[in-house]
């Protein structure tokens, strides 16, 4: 059971957060990706839940820890710690519900404000199986994603379409960022500290804020 896996059989650990309006399918994307499960009527998520899945890139084992939270607006007030340490984020909307797409702008600014500047971001149009009810044209989202430098995929947690692809693309992007960051810092050792910070660091999470970034982030996050 992946969610029970406290082991150390991985080289890198990436924290990825799912955000987006209530009811767009965040929890089902999570369960599809980590457990290959889908529930037609899944419980509304309150608080925060997460699960993990380990993938291999370039011979490195990468443990992706995916976080899921309540979509209702007011829950932002208790989830400021949600973004701490996240290196990737997926903004999810429902292709059959235009308001959930329109709110992506809002979710993007929330992310820019609260998460690390280097966080890799993907836009996901979920419920692609509801083609007949499509309210958000693919091209429009594609343009929005390009303008904001986001990855973009349409997925269906119900029939699995593109779910793995969406997560894998994001994880790949994070991996590239991490590797590049390490090279930029001239630190080629496997155990190198990708962000150059002196904080205790294993061969793992990179992109964590440097002390300076930390201060800035703290100022913003307070309450």
């Amino acid at each position, binding site marked *: 059971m992946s969610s029970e896996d*406290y082991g150390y059989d991985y080289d890198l650990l990436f924290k990825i957060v799912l955000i987006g309006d209530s009811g767009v399918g965040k929890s089902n994307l999570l369960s599809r990706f980590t457990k290959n499960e889908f529930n037609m009527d899944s*419980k509304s998520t309150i608080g925060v839940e*997460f699960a*993990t899945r380990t993938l291999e890139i370039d011979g490195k084992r990468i443990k992706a820890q995916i976080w899921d939270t309540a979509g209702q607006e007011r829950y932002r007030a208790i989830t400021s710690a949600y973004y701490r340490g996240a290196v990737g984020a997926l903004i999810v909307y429902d292709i059959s519900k235009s308001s959930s797409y329109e709110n992506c702008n809002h979710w993007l600014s929330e992310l820019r404000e609260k998460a690390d500047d280097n966080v890799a971001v993907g836009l996901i149009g979920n419920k692609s*199986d509801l083609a007949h009810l499509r309210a958000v044209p693919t091209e429009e989202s594609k343009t929005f994603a390009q303008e904001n430098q986001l990855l973009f995929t349409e997925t269906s947690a119900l029939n699995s379409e593109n779910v793995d692809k969406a997560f894998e693309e994001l994880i790949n992007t994070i991996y590239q960022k991490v590797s590049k960051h390490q090279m930029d810092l001239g630190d080629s050792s496997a155990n190198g500290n990708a962000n150059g910070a002196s*904080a205790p660091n294993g061969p793992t999470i990179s992109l964590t804020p440097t002390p300076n970034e930390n201060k800035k982030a703290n100022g913003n*996050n307070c309450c």
Partner: protein
Amino acid sequence: MIMSSTMSTEAALVPNENVFDTVSSFNEDDANYSVLDLYDDDDEGDDSSTVERKEILTTRELEKAKAFTSLIMADPENFDRYGFSKKGYFISQEEYDKWWTEYNRYTERRKKKWENFLLKNKIELHNDNPLVYPARTDELSKFVRKGIPAEWRGNAWWYFAGGQRQLDANVGVYDRLKSDCREGAVSGKDMEAIERDLYRTFPDNIHFHKESFQNGEPAIIRSLRRVLMAFSVYDKTIGYCQSMNFLVGLLLLFMEEEKAFWMLVIITGKYLPGVYESDLEGANVDQGVLVLCIKEYLPEIWSHIESSYMNGNGSTDQISGPTSGEEYLCRLPTLTLCTASWFMSCFVGVVPIETTLRIWDCLFYEESHFLFKVALGILKLSESEFLESKSQKLFRQYSSYTFGGSNDSDSTFKRLKNKIKTQEEADMEILQVIQNFPKRLLNPNDIFEKVLMKKKVALNGITQEKIDRGREYVAMARNRQRASSRPKERRK
């Protein structure tokens, strides 16, 4: 009302015909409903838009039918006496059945003792159900802590929470609210959020499940809608907050709609003040109080939290000004991401159902400080599990090196540094334990007998008065810190 007062302990509630024999026109996927439709119980029609939509949604409907079939399997043995699926992600049916055989004997024994206790106090049963209880004594409190008989719960909760007083002071209010709802008093935003959550409340409970071959909605879903909508009109500062669906959903399994409504008023107003309001500040305050309790009662966990503030996760000197020692009340530690929902849902869905119900027995008898006790009890029980987690061990070794003044040239230190995970990773793994541990608390007595009812356990020091004082203190500290950090926020 599903659990009738005449029901015997063993009589399974499943399937209850009353729950499934109703018909309404409302389709959950149909966005073009009117408020009136929602409240029209007698409408049997199936409008054309619903039919159309049905065709479109074939895949989803099929999936739903499949899910339902696998859920029912025509075997009520798969469900507990409240209609919940016995099997869960963390618990197999075999485990459940094995535990239940034992626990059922316990509940029967307890019921006998209750009956004797009530007899001794000259309280009569009406249809096997007491309408009043003896005066509050340590003895009564002990009885409540050991569990109220399931078929008495609705009345008992209502009695202990003072529901009747609320109702008597507000005769006719609920009916008026319902009619306000029919006339469009519910805000569009609340209505949308409520509609979305109705079927996402207890998908694992047979009474909340819509059969794919029926157009009608289960009666309990319609009650849930009415209560939540009425409440959103009754208390506009709260409106609808996700997690209230779980509270009302569970109440409705034990009492009628109007009573469930007033119980929600009591929970949101008296037990968890400010918790559901639009800024959820009450939830943050309660998490601050919980952290203070951890500091006092669970030093091992506290030392982990504290070190996370010393290792760059927090910045002790940046934001806090004069009260820097209490930064954690403002920038709440990561574990509160998990624990906040424990309080908001009063443990519904956090722990298995029988454990939830035992907690609710005490919540209505002892008020909100009991939720803090349970949270600390769970943390205490899971403590050993997460302290053993490898990274935590290594992290602690590492911490002792850094704080002990060791330097980088120390080879042991270097070796450790390569092995250990960051504080954030340690946090994540602890969170994973805290998230999953309570879901396996199938047997209520694992927490009640081992922690909560122990005579000489430090947690007994937590009283309602202490929690109330804590809430005041944390609210003030958070206000202060917010005021002092504001200029810095503007800087960006």
